[in-house]
Each structure stands twice: as C-alpha cells, then as structure tokens.
C-alpha cells in the first residue's frame, strides 16, 4: 500500500440543531490510501454525507477538532481560493445526479474543465474521451431529462472524472438505481479505479455495494466510525451490532428465533450455525451425518462468506466431535443443541 491520500485525525463536525447541537461527525480518524476503493456504510443520519462533504471542504471541520489532510493539503484554514482549487481536484457524484438540466450532456461533462479554464478544443477532445469511457458517446447532445437514471449517473461520473481528479467521492451514487443498473455503474467505478487509478470513497447504506467493490470499509453510527478495516474482516467478524445487522439484512443467513423454532419442528437433531469465513469454505468431509437446513453464502473480495445452519444427527459425542473438527478448521460455530435439549446460542 502507498501513503494515505486522505487522513482524518479526530475530526468532528457539529451542526446547530433545533433542539441543540448535532454532532454529525464525532471524533473520526481514518486513513484512506491512494488508489483504493474505500467504503463508508451506515444507516440514514449516521453522518456519511457530512463526512464526505468535509473531505471536499463543502463543510468545515469544527474549529480545533483535529486534522484533515487531503491530497497533501491541510484542509482546515485554507482560504476560499485554495479550497476551490482543492475541490477541482476532487470529483463527486451524487444520489440525485445533480446535472445541469438546461445544458447538454457534453456541456455538463465539460463544465469542470470550463471552470478550470480549458480551451474549447481541449475541452471537446477530453469530453468525447470521457463519453467514450463511460459508454454514452451517442448521448453527447441529449439533455439530462432525456436519459435514464443509469445514463444520468454515467454523465455524473464522466463529469466527476473530467478534470483528472485523484479522488472521487460517491455519495449514495447508486441508491436511485435498480439492481442491474447499480451493477453497471459500480463496474464503471471499478474501471475508473483500475484504469485511471482514482481513489474512490464510496458512501452507501447497502452492504452489497461495499461488498462488491470496496477493499476496505468503515462502518458509521451516530457520527462515529464504529469499526473499519478490510471489508472481508469487518463483515466476517463483525464487532458492532450495526455491522452484524448489515450482514444479516444483506444475507439473511442466520435463522431468527422464530426460524429456529420452525426448524426444530422438522429437524430434531443437533443444530449448529457455521460461519463460513475461510478460503477453504465448509469442507463437508468433516461431517458424517449432516443436513444443510438453512443459510446463505456469497462472496466478499473473492472469498466465500456467510453462514450455514446444519442439522447433525447421531450420538452426542459423535456430533460434538464433528463440531470440534469444524472449529479446529477455523470456522466459527454456534451450537444450538437439539430439539430435546436446546441451547440458546447467541445469534
């Protein structure tokens, strides 16, 4: 890994609310490396948008609240002119696209270049390059209202990349799109990251989005970063309850108490939830008499991820030995016991 391109040290942002101050961002420390795709996930109101708006200085950090360095600039204390120069090096895409409705696609995409003082000819060349890259070359003379949501976001991405920024901020960039279009747009972001080397900070409240393209992820709750690290680690060994909930809503892999009750009616044997968080997956050879009764598996960063609920049948010592083998293979196991002798395993 290279050196961090964005560093937040103990950064806070407080708004004046109707009923008192609101700490939208609360003592956040993060390092985002140049060239990575960094995810920030959190529920509505967690402070994600405020966090990105601090990075491109659309909001200013609380006075004396810590350090914020972006692309080599100490952001707090920069004057308006320097802030504008910094912003022009950071692309941003939005949930609502925020395109200029009175301007054509080509003019929208070229707008940052116009602000930066590029000549007409240089602008035109760069715009057609970007429209090619984002796959909307045929839409150059269309107006935003004539485009689908996915096409609008492609325009947004082309515009954000126009001035060859080193950082791209994406605030809920796919939240207004259907799943298939979401995937197309995310693929485009991945290409921008790989081919242009742009560092991406991606905000979302959907786990499948970070899971799809973020190498590292921070989880936010009430203004704080409650955990962060490699996306796989964060979600395979969630520490905070919010994180666990994100995994659960994305995967529905763990049976709820009501589900366990239904399972027991059909499967009187020993139930165990096995979390598959290892490159080897779940080796069924370790089990003699087992049935898969519940669960969900997916892939994070190209590694299997999720959990399976098994029913093990046989004597106690046989099933205990089987669980022991799974544990020694590095798998996390929650023993729920049998229908006759249930254990209230933590979910």
């Amino acid at each position: 890994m290279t050196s961090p391109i964005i560093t937040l040290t103990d950064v806070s942002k407080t708004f004046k609310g109707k009923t008192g101050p609101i700490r939208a961002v609360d003592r956040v420390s993060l390092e985002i490396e140049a060239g990575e795709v960094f995810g920030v996930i959190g529920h509505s109101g967690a402070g994600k948008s405020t966090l990105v708006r601090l990075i491109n200085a659309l909001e200013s950090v609380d006075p004396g609240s810590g350090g914020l360095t972006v692309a080599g600039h100490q952001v707090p204390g920069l004057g308006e002119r320097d802030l504008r120069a910094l912003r022009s090096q950071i692309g941003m895409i939005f949930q609502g696209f925020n395109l200029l409705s009175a301007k054509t696609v080509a003019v929208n995409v070229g707008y940052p270049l116009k602000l930066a003082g590029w000549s007409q000819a240089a602008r035109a060349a760069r715009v057609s390059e970007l429209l090619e890259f984002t796959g909307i070359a045929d839409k150059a003379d269309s107006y935003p209202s004539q485009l689908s949501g996915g096409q609008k976001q492609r325009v947004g991405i082309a515009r954000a990349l126009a001035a060859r920024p080193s950082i791209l901020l994406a605030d809920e960039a796919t939240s207004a799109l259907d799943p298939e279009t979401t995937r197309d747009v995310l693929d485009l972001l991945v290409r921008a990251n790989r081919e242009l080397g742009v560092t991406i900070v991606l905000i979302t409240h959907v786990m499948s989005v970070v899971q799809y393209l973020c190498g590292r992820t921070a989880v936010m709750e009430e203004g704080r970063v409650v955990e962060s690290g490699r996306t796989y680690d964060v979600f395979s060994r969630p520490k905070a309850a919010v994180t666990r909930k994100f995994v659960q809503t994305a995967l529905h892999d763990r049976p709820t108490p009501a589900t366990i009750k239904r399972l027991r009616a059909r499967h009187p044997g020993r139930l165990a939830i096995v979390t598959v968080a290892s490159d080897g997956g779940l080796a069924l050879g370790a089990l003699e008499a087992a049935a898969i009764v519940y669960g969900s598996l997916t892939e994070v960063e190209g590694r299997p991820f999720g959990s399976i609920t098994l029913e093990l049948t046989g004597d106690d010592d046989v099933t205990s030995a089987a669980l022991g083998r799974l544990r020694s293979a590095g798998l996390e196991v929650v023993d729920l016991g049998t229908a006759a002798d249930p254990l209230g395993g933590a979910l």
Partner: protein
Amino acid sequence: MSVLQANGWDPAIHNGKLLLAAQQSLQMVLLTLLIGGGLGLVLGLTLFATRKGGLYANRAVFAGLNILVNTIRPIPFIIFIMAVKGLAVALTGTFIGVKGAIPPMVIACSMATSRIVEQSLVAADPGVIEAGRAMGASRIHVLLRILVPESLAPLVLGYAYLFIGVLDLSVMAGAIGAGGLGNFAIVDGFNRYNDVVLWVAVAIFIAAVQVVQLVGNLLARRFLRR
C-alpha cells in the same frame, strides 16, 4: 373603421390621441420593465442568496430586504404614487406625466420582480448548487452562471406575468395624469360615455398581454429541458 365611426370613434381626434397614448404606455411599460425588472433581479438574487442556508447567508441583509419588500408591496399603487410624490420630483423634476410616473412604477415593479426572482430560484434543484461548489465554482459563479440559467424557464414566465402587472400600474398612473392608454380609456372613453374608445383600449390591452404571454410560453418551453 366605418363600424367604429358609426359608434363614436372620431378619427380626427381619436386616431392621434390613441397613437400618443400608445406611445406613452409603451414608454412607461418598457422603461419600468427595464429599470424595475433589472433592480428587481438584483434584489431577488440578493434575497435568495442571503436567506438562511443560502450561498451568502446573512441574516441582517435578508431581514432588512425582506421587511423593505413586505412594507412597500401591500401599499395600493394609486396611494403609493401620491406617497412618493416627493421622490418623483427629486428624481425627475415632476410628479405628473410619464416622467413623474416612472419612479413609483419602477419601485413597485422591482418589489414584485424581486419576489418572482426569489421564488424561481428557490424552486431550482439545490443539487446543482452542491454540484457547482463541488466542481470548484465560486459562489457568485454558482448564483449567476449556474442557478440563473437553470431557472430561466420560470424566470421568463415570471417576467411575462410581470408585464401584465406593469401594464396595470401604467393604467393606474394614467388615471392620475400620466397619460397613456389608461388615461385615454378613462378620459376619452369612460368619462365621455364613449364605449368605443373604451373598448378599443381594452382590445389593445388584451392583444398586448396575449402576445407577451405567447412569447413567454414559447421561450420558457425552449429553456425548460425537462
């Protein structure tokens, strides 16, 4: 012409009077729209920009302008003309005639315009402000080069609507001596029981408003790219 003549239109008198009145009306309306519409644009942009959370949020400036506009707007124009007599004399040397009518008309027009401009901008997508600022545009650039073009359709419709209002002002000014078509309709039509003169003036008002609204609609449709 013959139909009109049979009903009381005397070309020897009325043709000339109508021409002069039309000239005076045009003068009043255009000057007012130009100066008042311009001042109102500046005032409206300032109101929009200084409001809470605005690009140049400034409570004192906003409150001051807001009170100013809200104080002048409710005054019936016919009273307002008399109330600012002194100002008209100071600015133009007279408070009668077309010249004297211009200052009160300009003030009233700029107050109305400011609200129309403010409303048009408030209705614009705040996302474009965010996008503009994120691209590194200055605040003044966002206001004048991004927001105004984005709001052109409602602005044009607003100004078309304003034309009708200014026409109304010119008639009221005419009633107390500023001349123009309003004066013509009242003095040569209504007061002399000459309905033809009255209706000729009415027809001209209707035609003028139709034309302006039609052009406004066409332009707005061109600008509205939704």
